[in-house]
Structures are given as C-alpha cells and as structure tokens.
C-alpha cells in the first residue's frame, strides 16, 4: 500500500457566524469555490489533476444541500471531470474527508484528492437539516438524547471538571490564538476572502476576544442550565443514563465553548506519484486514521477511545505524539482528553482553538490538521495527532508525521 502525503493545507479566516459577521454576505458555494481555487492555484493543478473533491459539511440543507461538493467544483476553476462528494460526520467532517481521501488513494482509487469542508453557520443554522435522533421518539428515548451542551456538562460532572478549569482553558485558548496571529504563525495557511471585484472582505479570524480574562468569563451565565434543570429538563434524561450522578454541573457557557463561525478549509492529499507528477514536495505523511462510535448521551467523549484505538492500531504510545489538536468544542472535551492521557497542556492546541477562533463544523477537522502541520514545521517537531468529538457519540482521529 502506498504512503499518502499532505502537500498543502489552507483555510479561510473564520468570520463571526452572525448577521453582522464579515462572511455573512458570502455564500457557502462561493466560499467553497474560493478555497478550491486557492489550493489549485497554489499548487499549479490544471485539468483533471485530482481524482475527486471530498467536502465535509454538517448541515446539508438549502445552499449547503444538493451535494454542495459538486456545485463547488462546478463554480470553481477546477475541471468538470472532477466530480465532488459531500460527506457528513458532523464536526469531524473535514477530518473525515481527509481520512477518506487517504483511504481511497491507498485503495488505488486515484493519486490525488482535495479534501476539506465548509460551514456557513450564520447562514445555514445548525440543526436546520433536522435530526431523527433528536425528535423521533423511537430513537431519542432509546438513546437518551440530550443536546451537546448538556452532554459537555455531563462530561464535566462525570470527570470532576470544574467551571474554573474550563474558564482557565478558555482564557488560554484566547491567549494562544492572539499570540499565534501576532507572530504570524497562520500566515502560510490563511487565505484572504475577496469579493467579486477583488476587494478583501476578511483576512483575519473575527471571533477572537484576546482581552478575555477569568473575571469576564466568570460573569457569564451557564448556557445549558435552563434547558437542563427547567424546561424541558434534559438533566433528567442525562441522569437516567448516568444514575450514579445526583445532578449535572452546568459549567459551560458562551465563553468556554466553541464559537459559531463561517469558514472553509482544504488540503491537498496524494501519493508519491502525484507529487512527482505535479512537482510538489510532501509536507507530511498521513500515518493513521481511526473512527469510533461511543455512548450517544455523553456524546462528546469520542477523542479518548478513538485516540486509544489509533495508537493501538499504529503501534504507538501517547508519548510518541509531539503535538495534539483536540477540537475545543467545549472546554470539558479537551480537559477530559488531557486528564485521560496525562498529556501536558503545552502539547495541546498550542495556537489556540475553536473557543477563541470558532468552529465552522464541516471545516474544522481540515483546519485542525493544517494548524497541526504548520506548528510541527514551525517548532521542528515530527508527529502530531488531530482528533474531534462528534455529535450522536462518535470520534475521529488522524496521525501525521513530517517527512
């Protein structure tokens, strides 16, 4: 089986996912096409250069529906013979796109792929594509469905993670993101978003609040207490699945949870022959990938078992990994990961994460992998692991090593 490499990675800046966010005027189609054009241009990809575009997106409805991947290819400068495949593994869609592309190449289905994703959360609301698991009683009841915020609070309760722990992590995410921008650590990856006339709409992550301190975080009201304790009372459902707990500690709020943003990201994936054909130098090898299903109620603990699995299957130990990107969906997800593996904070999310910069669901997995690769190169380290928790109880992980 041939080795699969990452040749390039880039992303758009992340705009606030609100009506007054900078990218709110940009369609999902156009942002996707811009991203595809950028990666094709930077790497001199002409004609039928890649086998497919695998495009992650969590809310495939409206402008993000109808196989956005194919529409994006057609709207971009890519050759129409490149088809386009939309996929949905919720928050890990962007990483799963890369993993699928790598597996396709290993399986012999072509030599090069563009993989990534997009999410315009301000334009296509999260959950607006419906979800049987949330509303169909036959599954919602059987699976003890609770929304993600409640699930994150279950993690905190189950693993003894406090509000102070979560707020400290949030503040550190802001601090690290600000430093990374100040020192130009994202310079290689971030492409500006121009309008149709070439005027810049956004060239910097818009969601960051570098002035955040523990006091301002401490003043925020827990976001999921009302729906947990009062109406409709999701805590009761949580306690049915976790009956050894007496009550759920509601520690998460807008400041220690991921930001709602718009954004897109893409990676260029290929084998040795692909690099040679296009005169490209591989930046890293995709060493392993893994995916797993977990308890859907606590839902967001997937990074731990999927990391255990990927390490076991690739014969590695946690100490073999130099740097980690663990998606900051909620503080407790990252804190639980570090607690489970005893990993120091200095090796995890070293340039901040989704709490500071936002979490454009379908794109985030691809963003994490790009950020990880940039930082491995900058710090001269070799091996990194990216992982995300996933709705409905799943986890995805990828290990890369520089070549």
């Amino acid at each position: 089986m041939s080795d699969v490499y990452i040749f390039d990675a880039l992303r758009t800046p992340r705009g606030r996912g609100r009506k007054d966010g900078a990218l709110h005027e940009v369609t999902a189609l156009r942002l996707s096409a811009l991203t595809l054009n950028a990666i094709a241009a930077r790497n001199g990809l002409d004609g039928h250069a890649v086998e497919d575009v695998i495009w992650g997106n969590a809310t495939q409805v409206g402008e993000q529906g109808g196989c956005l991947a194919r529409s994006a290819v057609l709207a971009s400068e890519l050759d129409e013979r490149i088809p386009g495949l939309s996929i949905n593994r919720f928050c890990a869609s962007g990483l799963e796109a890369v993993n699928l592309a790598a597996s396709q190449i290993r399986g012999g289905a072509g030599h090069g792929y563009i993989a990534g994703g997009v999410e315009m959360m301000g334009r296509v609301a999260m959950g607006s594509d419906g979800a049987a698991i949330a509303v169909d009683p036959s599954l919602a009841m059987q699976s003890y469905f609770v929304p993600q915020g409640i699930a994150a609070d279950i993690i905190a309760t189950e693993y003894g993670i406090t509000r102070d722990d979560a707020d400290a992590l949030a503040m550190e995410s802001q601090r690290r993101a600000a430093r990374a921008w100040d020192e130009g650590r994202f310079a290689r990856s971030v492409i500006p978003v121009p309008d149709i006339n070439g005027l810049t709409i956004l060239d910097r992550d818009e969601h960051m609040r570098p002035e955040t301190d523990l006091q301002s975080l401490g003043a925020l009201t827990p976001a999921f207490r009302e729906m947990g304790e009062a109406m409709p009372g999701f805590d009761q459902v949580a306690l049915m699945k976790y009956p050894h707990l007496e009550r759920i500690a509601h520690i998460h709020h807008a400041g220690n949870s991921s930001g709602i943003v718009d954004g897109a990201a893409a990676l260029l994936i290929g084998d040795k022959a692909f690099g040679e054909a296009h005169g490209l130098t591989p930046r890293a090898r995709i060493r392993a990938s893994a995916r797993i299903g977990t308890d859907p109620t606590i839902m967001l603990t997937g990074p731990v078992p999927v990391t255990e699995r990927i390490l076991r299957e690739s014969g590695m130990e946690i100490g073999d990994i130099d740097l980690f990107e663990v998606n900051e969906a909620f503080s407790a997800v990252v804190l639980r990961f570090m607690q489970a593996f005893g990993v120091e904070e200095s090796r995890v999310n070293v340039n901040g994460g989704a709490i500071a910069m936002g979490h454009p669901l379908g794109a985030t997995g691809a963003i994490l992998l790009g950020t990880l690769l940039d930082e491995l190169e900058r710090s001269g380290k070799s091996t990194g692991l990216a992982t995300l928790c996933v709705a409905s109880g799943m986890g995805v992980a990828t290990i890369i090593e520089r070549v």
Partner: protein
Amino acid sequence: MSDFTLQTGADGVAVISWDTPGKSMNIMSLQGLLDLGALIDTALADSDIRGIVITSGKPGSFAGGMDLNVLAEMRSAGNDPAQGLFDGVMRIHTLLRKIERAGMDAQGKGGKPIAAALPGTALGIGLELPLSCHRIFVADDPRARIGLPEIKVGLFPGAGGTTRLIRKLGAMGAAPYLLEGKLCAPKQAKAAGLVDEICADPLAAARSWVLEASEADLVKPWDRRGYKLPGGAPYSAQGFMTFLGANAMVMGKTKGVYPAAKALLSAVYEGALVPFDTALKIEARWFTSVMLNPSSGAMIRTLFQSKQALEKGANRPDAPDSAVQKLGILGAGMMGAGIALVAAQAGIEVVLLDRSAEAAEKGKSYSASYMDKGIARGKATAEDKAALLGRITASGDYAELRGCDLVIEAVFEDPETKATATREAGARIAQEAVFATNTSTLPVSDLARAFDRPQDYIGIHFFSPVEKMALVEIIKGRETGPRAVAKALDFVRQIRKTPIVVNDARFFYANRCIIPYINEGIRMVGEGVAPALIENAAKLVGMPLGPLQLVDETSIELGVKIARATRAAMGEAYPDGAVDAVLFEMADEGRLGRKAGAGFYAYDDKGKRAGLWDGLTAQYPPEAEQPELLDIQHRLLFIQALEAVRALEAGVLEDIREGDVGAILGWGFAPWSGGPFSWLDMLGTPYAAERCDALSDMHGTRFACPALLREMAARGESFYGRFGAARNAA
C-alpha cells in the same frame, strides 16, 4: 335490543341515540360498533335524511368509554393477536372516518352534516366518536367530564383520538389531554378546543346546526389543501423544538418505563409527517404494540379492571346496604380532620370529636381552608363551602356521637389512649353502630378488646393526606364480623376511594411492604452504595420516590420508633441491625427527616429539598466498585414483592388483585408493572425464584424464596393463573 337507535324527524334530521341497556353510562362494544356503522350507512344512503345528530339516551352523560372486552375479543379474533388487534382497530378507524367524510367526494362536496350532542360526560371513545363528527355540542353541566383518560391505565387513545386531537390542537396543545389524560368540565373543554359549543339543550342546538351547516363546515382542516399542523410539524423550526422537548419531558416524567407514553409519542411524531389516513394506520400499529405489551396488560388489569371490581364490592360480604348516615370521628388531628373532609364531601353528616371543642374546631378548620383553596381555583363556590362545613359538627363532648352508625377512632397511636377513647365512645353509641380504628401500626385484634362487640370492631386505615390518597386498607381483626366489613366497604364506596380488605398482622399489608423498601435503601447506604445511585435506581424502576427521600418524608424519627418497637417485639430474630446502624446515627445527629429540615437530604430555609446531604458520603464513603443498576433495582423491588407474597402465604392478603391495587394506590409500587404479583408474573416465577436465591446468597436471607413462590416456580405457575381466575369468577 341494539345500543343504537335511529329516528328521523320531519325536518329530515336523523337522531342516532346511544343507550346501552342495563348500564348507567354507555360503553362501546363490538356489536355497538357494528350497529352504529349500519345506522350511519342507512342515514347516509337515505336521500330523505339531510343530516345526523349522534346523542345519548343517558341523562348527564354521552359515554364512559370502550368496553375493554372489545380489545380482548379483537386479540383473539384470529391466529395472530397482532393481526386481530390491528384489523379490529382499523375497522373502528374506517367507521369514524366514514362519519367524518359523511359521504362527501374528494373535493368535499355532497356530504351530510353530522353533529354530536353530548348530554354530559364523554370519555375515551365517548370523545373520540364526537371528534370524528363535524361539530360537538355539550350540555352546560360543570359536573360533566370530557377527556381521554386512556394513558392512566397504560393505553393511549387508539380510536383516532390521538391523531385528531394532535391535528386540532397541535402537539403542545394536545399534550395534557393525551399524555396526562387530563379531564375537564365542558367550559374548559371548549376553551381548550376539545368541543365546539356549550348549550342548555345540545340536541336541539345540534339539530339546528345540522339544518344550517354549509358544505364547507363539514370539511375538517386536515382534509383541506395546505393544512399545517398547529405549532408546526416535527421538522419545522418551531415544531422541532416542541418534539425535542416533548421526548425529554416524557422521559423525565415517566423514566421510560411506560410503553404507552412512548408509543403515543411515536404515533404522534410519525403521524405528523404523513397525510391523515396514513397517520390513522400508524396510530393503529402503535396502539396494537401497546396492547401486546405485558406492562400495559398488567396496568389495565390492575388499574382498571381490578380497581373497579374492588370499588364495586368484589370482596364485600353478602349483607344489606349499610351506607353511613352519620359518622363519628375521634381525634381531630391530621388524619381525623382529613377523614372529616372526605366524608363531608360525600354528603355524610360528621361529628368531629377531640378533647376540647377548640381542638375539634381546629380540625374542622382544615376543611374550611381546603374549600378556600378550591374557591380560589374556581373549583368550588362559597355555597359549597358553607354546605360542607354545615355537615361537620366539631365538639369536645362524646354525647354528640349519639346517632352515629360508624365511628372512626383516629387518636394518638398509643394503645392506652386508644382504649380510653374507644370505651368512652362505645358507651354512647347504638348497638348496631360499627367502630373502626385508623391505626397504622397497632394490631387491630388487640385494640378491639376495648370494645364490647369485637365482631363490630374493624380497622379502616387511611393514608396521608387523606383527601389525596385513593386507597383505604380495611383490616379484619380476629373476631371482626361480616357486617362490619360490609359497613367499612360501603363507607369507602361513599367517599369514592378504593378499598382492600386484609387480615390483622403486623403492619397489615401496605406498611408491611413499604418499610422493607425503605430499609433496603438505608442498608445500601451503609454498604457504600452511592446514595444518588440508590435513589435514581428506584426512580428508574418506576418508584415515585427513592427510599431515602421516602423516609425523609415519612420521618426518620418515626422510622427509629418503628425499628425500636419491632426490635423489642422480635428479639433475637430481628434482622435489621445494619439498617438501624445508619438510621439511628442519622437520628442522633438530629437529621430526623423533612419536617426537621435535615435528613438524608438537605433542605433550604423554605423546606425545599436541596440535594442529598453532603455529609452522607463522608459518613458512608461510596465503594469504588458500585453495583450494577439492575441489582439495586431488583433488591428494591424484590424486597417489596416478597413481602407481598409472604402476606399472601400468611393469609393476610386474600386476593392478589387487592395486593396489586393496594401496592400501586397505597405506596406507588412501580405502576407500570401492575403491582408486585403482576411483576412477578412478568418475570416468570421460575426466574423470580432464581433471583431470590441469588439475592439471598449475596445479601441475606430476607430475600429467601417463599415456599409458595418456590412451589409455583417448580410448576411453572403464575400468580394470576393460580389465584386470579377463581377470584374473578367469584
């Protein structure tokens, strides 16, 4: 003679009148459905008939619901119960849909108006049938009850009531009526949209409406183009939140143990996504699944059939009617005051006696403040209050007991005090009067010694609060005669509660079973089981309160008192030392329960429960390795169910129906199970015996398999198989 008759007036309006012979209220039978269908066909086909009014021949009511035998007949109609039920239910849908469409074509043209005229109460299919009509007129009678109570006995409205009400009111609006079985008076029913008009003469009003109705009046909203579910379908922005919340709320409330609640929600959700006729088919499939679920079967048997049989005097000795005319109550404390209230509500004249007139008045004031609350809520009037209070004479003088045909003693739980009160009263009442004690802990046969006619002495054990608790436990002393039993049962019928009749033994039946439940929970605390896990395990298996919360409510002080008395009575054989170690320590620390503001739970300044006391886990640190949920649940249920079996073995219980009804109404034994005997039948006696052995090995001989259960397990018998049939025939 058919339950339904048709009469056409000179105005061309056909009146179909429902009048089930020999019943005070109409109930629907299989033959009734066929007859109604035939009359509808006739009326729709007859060109001289302009429209139809469906009404009842019973004054004050339309119908009480479906005869549950209909469902049993459907079940056994073919080789496959599922097919029989589904086909049977679909036939009802077809009939009601025929009424709803009333001969109109796809464009809504050519139908005949069909109105329902309800003289009063309309329950179950008694409302589902009107819901299929084009307009519903109800008599202006505040005593009438309108609603769909099916969920309360483990079913859900399966004759289109679910599908129609959801489409009429939306998921949110219909929820109280479908999910809680809420019943309301006509005025509230109209405000909620369950019925259309309230009038003095519903038949006349329906008749004139039929004569004036236009074609457009006949087409239901859901049969029009562009119909949208009120509040939104599941995948609309608004509807999504409703359905998301509904699942969580129902889960939280029912702990997932009631199959009917789940099936109802699925029928609603799946039905909301498809056209009306498909939704009816879906409703029928889920209804069938509930009918086939053993839990629903057990709930129907206990909460409907057995409960009703007991209320109608299934175990009443053959004696002339002896309804109470004048009731004497000794002791105007919490229990006495409550008994006075419910008796006065039933129209019985009451003498409420205490040591002084002031003390008695204080007890009477309980009824006054109860009525005040009712007035504030618009459920009673000042006249109601005056009439009720007029029936209660508060006094400090035993002479007032003259003329009482039943006296209930509810004084302090002390043999001497009770004996004195009994002698004082006994000397003043007539020779035919029956004397009862409301003791909850003292042997009735011993207390009877203070009364010179032990055959007329009986225990009538009320539960607290009297006006809320539906069960009354009647205890026969060794010498209690049939006349006293009949009198007690007649009294319970008068106050509209449900009786069980048991023999005299320590703690009778209810307390005998509930005390071990509490003790098992306390014992687990001492063993290092996480207190939250104990409480949640209990609730997850359908107990309304965890054992620790329950003992806080009933008072730890009382628990200590009972433990001391039991220990004194049993001596060496006393098995609950491990329980007392925890219980007495709590008491020593002043944690005496909710009233003391401290118990296994902490309480805030207002007396509101504020979580388990955090000192509890410091005192009894939870073990690192916690038991499986199912093991805890089995300990908590078996400890009660085995006590019920022993009560049956010992002859304390004479009828397992009373054991099941009493357990659910008396202390809330996992209602989804249908009661302890139904639960053991559901497990199967061989498995139950096996579990006893395992639990007994692991946790002690209090779980030892009773000989009766062992014998039944060996023969593969069920409780209802062995004890049910004979009783039902009686």
